[in-house]
């Protein structure tokens, strides 16, 4: 991930003490910071420690979560605050909502974003609506994280990106960090936020490294950032497709096309201003979303642009997405599903009549 000298308006920037670490390490580090900062914060989920209940056998922290997000935390914070659950998503997410309503700040590991539907009613009927239905009584400072996205043969039930379904629901917030730097700031912000926030950790980002400041910081929810400034076309990415857009911009630059890349970071609340500001300048926009095409985030952003930047558009709004299918297993089919930098380049060149 390019760490340019251009000042980054989100978080402390890159001229502070820090190091190149992977997304998963930034996540783990930040969880530890937040647990230390606020005794009401606790983590629960399946195998967040692992080997639960076996301390007397000398077994502790055997997994530390499915991508080691919580490794090393139980030793410091104990089994009450790093709490393994049975496989009961509706039950423990519901319990997390109730705990949040009554004074604690749960951080729930849902393991795979696809499993959110097992807990969906609790999120939809309770987390999203309680504060509203009760006239402002109660708040739900719940943070929920899970791995999302297509990678390496995880197949149809473990590869989805339907974050638009979360963004669609009034009362829920949804964020999609795009690298180790942003996940550190966004996770801290999500935990400190008093509303329910769902964090999508794309599988392909987990092992990618970028510069991460040592000190704690937050990145404001509802703010996107530029990954690249340009004049000819706006490329909008979210989660892993921000990286896809960045790569596409490099390929386009080699062909003399100067692309601007917007990294959404926040799906709800959403930064309309950065998208509009960019397309007013470039007059053309391609939105890249690894989700399936009907009613996805790309469609939502396209409607905003069509409404509020209509006079700036010199061409139709293009969306590059997965197809309207479940995610297939076999690699050539899976590769064909994923919107690639080459797909973005091809669409952009057609858009520019090049």
């Amino acid at each position, binding site marked *: 991930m390019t760490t340019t000298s251009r000042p980054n308006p989100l978080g402390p920037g890159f001229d502070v003490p820090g190091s190149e670490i992977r997304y998963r390490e930034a996540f783990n580090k930040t969880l530890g910071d937040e647990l230390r900062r606020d005794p009401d914060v606790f983590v629960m989920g399946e*195998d967040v420690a*692992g080997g639960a209940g076996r301390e007397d056998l000398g*077994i502790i922290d055997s997994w530390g979560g499915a991508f080691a997000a919580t490794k090393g935390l139980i030793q410091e914070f104990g089994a009450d605050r790093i709490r*393994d659950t*049975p*496989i009961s998503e509706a039950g423990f997410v519901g319990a997390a909502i109730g705990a949040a309503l009554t004074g604690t700040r749960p951080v729930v590991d849902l393991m795979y974003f696809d499993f959110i539907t097992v807990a969906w009613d609790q999120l939809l009927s309770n987390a999203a609506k309680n504060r509203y239905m009760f006239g402002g009584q109660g708040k739900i400072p719940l943070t929920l994280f899970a791995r999302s996205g297509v990678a390496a*043969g995880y197949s149809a039930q473990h590869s989805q990106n339907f974050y638009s379904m979360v963004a669609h629901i009034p009362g829920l917030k949804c964020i999609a960090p795009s690298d180790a730097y942003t996940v550190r700031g966004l996770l801290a912000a999500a935990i400190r936020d008093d509303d329910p926030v769902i964090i999508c950790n794309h599988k392909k980002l987990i092992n990618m490294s970028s510069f991460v400041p040592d000190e704690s910081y937050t990145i404001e929810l509802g703010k996107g950032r530029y990954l690249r400034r340009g004049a000819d076309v706006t490329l909008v990415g979210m989660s892993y497709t921000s990286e896809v857009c960045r790569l596409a911009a490099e390929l386009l630059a080699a062909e003399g096309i100067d692309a601007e890349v917007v990294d959404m970071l926040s799906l709800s609340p959403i930064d309309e201003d950065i998208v509009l500001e960019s397309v007013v300048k470039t007059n053309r926009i391609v939105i890249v979303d690894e989700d399936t095409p009907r009613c996805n985030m790309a469609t939502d952003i396209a409607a905003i642009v069509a409404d509020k930047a209509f006079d700036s558009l010199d061409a139709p709004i293009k969306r590059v997405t997965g197809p309207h*299918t479940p995610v297939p297993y*076999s690699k050539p089919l899976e590769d064909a599903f994923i919107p690639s930098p080459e797909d973005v380049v091809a669409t952009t060149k057609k858009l520019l009549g090049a």
Partner: protein
Amino acid sequence: MEITPEKLRWLYTTMYRIRRFEEVLLEQTALGKSMGVAHTSDGEEAGPTGICAHLTDADWIGSTHRGHGHCIAKGVDTAGMMAEIFGKYTGLCKGKGGSMHIADFTKGMLGANGIVGAGIPLAVGAALSAKLKGDGSVGVSFFGDGATGEGTIHESMNLASVWKLPVIFVCENNHYAESTPVEYAVSVTDIADRAASYSMPGVVVDGMDVFAVYDAAGEAIARARAGDGPTFIELKTYRYHGHYHADDPHTYRLPEEEELWKARDPLPNFERKVIEQDLMDEVEMERIRNEIDQEIQDAVEFAEESPLPPIEELYTDVYVNYSNSVQGLR
């Protein structure tokens, strides 16, 4: 329960076929031939074998992410399975599902399922069809100790009970859900004790003894076919490997515990019994093993030599009669 010589041979052949398939799959996965993860069930063979011994192609089974044993016991073809796991077009699901989603509807296998607890109601649904059609078939739902934490097990058992459905709930209690031990995650020691709350018989069975499984399953399936409703069978069993191929179970299991279970391995268990009782001999069993070894080797070759699916298959089978997926949005 009387077991015919043919059925005895079938029991051994099936258990060994599962064992060999899982062992070879782990080898092939380590060589990078699989496109995804492998959740193997070696150690657990006696369960699906003893149960499916009483089933026909007209009966349906529901399964889990750890479904290779269920497939094989239900008569699903190992070459088609291996090709599926290798992501090939000749796979049972054209390479679109992989290990966690292997299905064969010609054999009554409703499919492996990656969402814990999600397969349980499907088998209840098969029993519902059976009841509506009056065809005497049954549904068998396989699930693990971990799945008993899901709401679907409660809803499915209650439904099967109040509707008196011909379904058998089979809990393969291998004592771990990923890295989480059953003593931590489940509120009872014998999960079958919960069956009484749903007004159905619950039996605890030694899941390492295919004869014990065969007997208990025979009773339960006969009950179901006679219209007397569901039964809950809990198999005490063990998976020899980790949750999936790259999981080291020694981070949460003690080697001494593994040794205790391996000492009760269903295959030598069976061999000892049939030799003692003069029902089969070692020559015959060795011949079976050699045949199966060859069969699995052939399955690997078949899978290796098979083509990948064409890109057009990305867009098929979404619906029966509608397609909205031409090229995605590009």
